[in-house]
């Protein structure tokens, strides 16, 4: 029976071995960036790799990161839940994020936000019924001069218009 108790440091053993190997292979070069006794520094990169390989950060994935970095699973959970870019719950195949902070809001982001929610049939942070897109508003992306700005699967799109935003979400498969 799968052991999904977060407090169980061995929970990662329930993960598919092949993907655990890939996790280790991708993590290995990153570990070299930090002093030998400070491997926990790689927590953010490790969780990023884990989310990429396993879809989202389950207790097992957090336990895997914690095990490889020599800290408790609670430390991994603490980081996974603090940073907004990490998902501890399933998300859509694509992540669409729109900045609605002041620079983008002053140049039309609020209207785009409302229109995309309608178009996708989701509330802020929701996922479309077909699992295609998770959509949410985010804070300032550092593109205020080329506002409004979006992130599509972590890639920045700038000077977004309503038409451009609608086209982008239509084209995501």
């Amino acid at each position, binding site marked *: 029976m799968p052991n999904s108790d977060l407090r169980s440091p061995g929970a990662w053993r329930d993960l598919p071995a092949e993907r655990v190997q890939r996790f280790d292979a991708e993590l290995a070069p990153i570990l070299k960036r930090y002093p030998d006794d400070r491997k926990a520094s790689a927590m953010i990169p490790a969780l*990023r790799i884990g989310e990429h390989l396993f879809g989202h950060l389950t207790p097992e994935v957090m336990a895997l990161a914690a095990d490889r970095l020599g800290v408790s699973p609670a430390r991994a959970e603490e*980081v996974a839940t603090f940073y907004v870019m990490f998902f501890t719950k399933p998300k859509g195949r694509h992540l669409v994020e729109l900045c609605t902070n*002041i620079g983008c809001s002053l140049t039309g982001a609020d209207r785009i936000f409302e229109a995309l929610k309608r178009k996708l049939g989701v509330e802020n942070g929701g996922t479309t019924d077909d699992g295609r897109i998770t959509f949410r508003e985010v*804070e300032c992306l*550092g593109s*205020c*001069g080329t*506002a409004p700005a979006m992130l599509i699967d972590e*890639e920045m799109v*700038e000077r977004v218009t309503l038409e451009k935003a609608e086209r982008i979400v239509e084209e995501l498969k």
Partner: protein
Amino acid sequence: MSETLILTKRWGTKDSATLASYRSAGGYSSLEKGLGMAPSAIVDEVKTSNLRGRGGAGFATGLKWTFLPKDVRPRYLTVNADESEPGTFKDRYIIEHDPHQLIEGIALTCWANDIHTAYVYIRGEFARQARILEAAIAEAYQAGIIGPKLLGKADFPLDIFVHRGAGAYICGEESALLESLEGKKGYPRLKPPFPAVVGLYGKPTIINNVETIANIPWIVTNGGAAFAALGMGKSGGTRLFCVSGHVNRPGVYEKPVHYNLKKLIMEDCGGVVGGRKVKAVIPGGSSAPVLAGDEIDVSMEFDALKAAGSMSGSGGVIVMDDSTCMVRALSRIAKFYAEESCGQCTPCREGTPWMEALIHKIEHGHGHPGDVDKLAQMANSIGGQTICALGDAAAMPVQSFVKKFRAEFEQHIHERRCPFGEHAWGKTQESRDAVVGGMRA
């Protein structure tokens, strides 16, 4: 162009991010010169230059370097590329257009301060910029500029690593950045001890902003006095001003550090869209106190803007025209700080959502007489009461908006609605070209 450009000179030139391009423009000759100088002489030049931190606090860079204890090793350099203050978008362009200038600055800073490991903490949302910087660092290793020997000769190993965050404004605060870099959630540390004494892994650590470090090669080449001469008073050099909001040409402008705010908006940025009037300007990132439209004929130098009741902070200039509802603008800013409060200190954790809710209530016509005073009181009980500056950053916009535009808040309450209505908000301005360092973005 008669203006001296330090940081943006090469932006927009062909393949400007590559080592070959940087070298052909004389790149890494400053490091060559620096390696022939005593490390302490470089620190002296930086002190003479009056370079002040470009991340927001404006602290004297050279002075900061001298706070490192003499006999503790290793020391670390962490470069703050967490650029997240709303209205600020300059460090990303340094990395996109001229990453080797930053790398040369890092190498010189490390040589000057006997540091052998540097981490660039870049915000998680800058995935592309992180890739560009990592590619440039790989080129520098490959060419033997960094690695076991600086420029392939000086017996001085240097490693530079990029560390990408995962979405948290608070990690731009230097001690939260260190916590994050150590693999923890970004809770700011109590200071003192300051990072220069007890920093990364408990070791002495210099933390400087990307733009700050990118100035170092020019200072070493041209001397601290020449840099100081570009500015005024206790602030030397040029600065990247980021202009956003309702201007005809938003973008990044490199200007002397004491440049006039009104001139920047009305001349360089071509004034306000549609010829409308400037109603308000936030001159230094969203946490800086707002200036009313008739208060913008001021120098943007750190001390001058402070004297004018605001701050030049991170150089993010947000311009709002006369159709802007100030309550709605503040509402969005307050939402940001409520979202980004890390939750460590009670006044900030509890107070920022309260402020957000009250401003939202006023904006939507549900405010009561006395709410404006209550709002100001809330802000006053957050500012100065927290471990880090986020509490102040959340309080200052509220305090200044209420002070400068009180009548507008009262009007919302009195009329039980937003007098500006929905139609005026968020004009789409896709026809505008952003100007980044003299080129179209």
